[in-house]
């Protein structure tokens, strides 16, 4: 099957969750994002890769309304994206556990801000503690945890909301290889179990190919979408598998940043 056919098959019959049209962002005179349009489908795992400083993070910030867009629309379920209405969740590049809250209170935080009923807060928190395997550490404080446990707390806090979309901004950038594998597998497992829409941003091509159903390649500033690649490999994937390496090399060629 050619890439073209793959792509057509992939898009057919999917329900759009987020639609981005003509998204443009300028800082004063600096054009960072230039006319970006694409859809994210319901329940999809989408990865965006591109060189550092290509505007990936700016894009996420526009999507979550941290910063205003210069032009273009971002619609979630047909409505303009807005964190107060949509259940969005965000895993940041930096560790974002709240240092003065215990593990369980960290997980409760989002639910409480969303004013969910107390029994639901408790139920979801328990579920999440179980899911990320931190039951024994529920009363620990972030600084007593290792980096990977902290990242799992953050993931639990976000999945607890049963979010419509989960945005992840290079969450595993600073972790060592083995740990990254482990957390990537965890993420896939939780995503398959809960089934929400994930938008994962990374500079690491291998990671993108390992995780995604579909990869979008961003070019250098001002960022535009250079290519779309469907990854139709079965899971669990193997990074030494020739088919995997082929896609990885293809993505690398598409970016050609070094």
């Amino acid at each position: 099957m050619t890439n073209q056919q793959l792509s057509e098959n992939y898009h057919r019959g999917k329900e759009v969750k987020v639609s981005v049209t003509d998204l443009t962002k300028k800082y004063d005179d600096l054009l960072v994002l230039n006319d970006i349009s694409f859809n994210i489908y319901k329940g999809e795992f989408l990865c965006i890769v591109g060189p550092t400083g290509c505007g990936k993070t700016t894009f996420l910030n526009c999507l979550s309304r941290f910063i205003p867009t210069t032009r273009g629309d971002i619609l979630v379920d047909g409505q303009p994206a807005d964190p107060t209405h949509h259940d969005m969740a965000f895993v940041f590049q930096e560790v974002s556990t709240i240092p003065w809250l215990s593990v369980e209170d960290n997980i409760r935080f989002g639910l409480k801000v969303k004013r969910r009923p107390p029994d639901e807060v408790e139920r979801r928190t328990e579920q999440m503690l179980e899911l990320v395997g931190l039951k024994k550490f529920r009363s620990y404080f972030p600084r007593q945890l290792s980096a990977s446990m902290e990242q799992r707390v953050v993931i639990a806090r976000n999945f607890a909301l049963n979010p419509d979309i989960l945005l992840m901004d290079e969450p595993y950038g600073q972790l060592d290889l083995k740990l990254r594998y482990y957390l990537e597998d965890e993420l896939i497992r939780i995503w398959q179990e809960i089934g929400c829409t994930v938008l994962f941003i990374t500079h690491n091509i291998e990671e993108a190919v390992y995780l995604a159903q579909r990869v979008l390649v961003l070019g250098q500033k001002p960022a535009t979408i250079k290519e779309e690649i469907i990854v139709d490999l079965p899971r669990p994937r193997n990074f030494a598998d020739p088919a995997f390496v082929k896609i990885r090399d293809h993505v690398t060629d598409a970016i050609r940043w070094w």
Partner: protein
Amino acid sequence: MSTSNVKIAAKGISKSFTTENGTIQVLDNVSLEVKTNEFLVILGPGQCGKTILLNCLAGILPPDSGEVILNGKKVTEPGPDRGVVFQQYALFPWKTVRDNVAFGLAIRHMPVKERYEIAQKYIDLVGLTGFEKSYPHQLSGGMKQRVSIARSYANNPEVLLMDEPFSALDAQTRYSMEKELLSIWEQEKRTVVFITNNVEEAIYLGDRIVLMTKLPGTIKMEFPLTSPKPRNYTDASFLEMRLAISEETELAL
């Protein structure tokens, strides 16, 4: 391995520290030998005592038992024959790039003109021409680490000890720094002991990889790397080696 071309060696080094929660054994009988102009990578998980090992090699910390031998002589103190590149750069914030690079030469009371000439050579080598008069806080992380490398090189040490020099950098800078370090090393060969917790970096740079265990740190295994440099991250041999090494490492949760 014949002992004649061994540059620096650790013999049975043990080290422990006393803390509030009792004594922690950090290194347990670690021995290794580094040949002249060899690029040795010590790979280990976070907190495995590899930094302590490097500090012992540098002479900054005295080992509890065992000894460090440089050119057949026992090391007791830090000295200009061993240059150290620190993870947090350890640049002098009150000195310009040029004065930082020339620091070791100034300590030896080399005349100003001469030392600036040498400093300039290494500033050029690491690609910081034009930044001689900048202060460290005006530089990015990658640039700071270049200054630190130049500072060590300028002092003309026999052995370069590098303590996770790129771990504070973002991924892309890290890739380009690895590449650059390799080309500097190809131009001016030195005996290098390079510490990292990143498997890819280890395979990319090393002539030989020494894998360490978690605390107390011991040497678990050695991997000689023979393929020519620069290596390709997606080569089958590279990926195989990565798999082989990561199978041997422990998952630090």
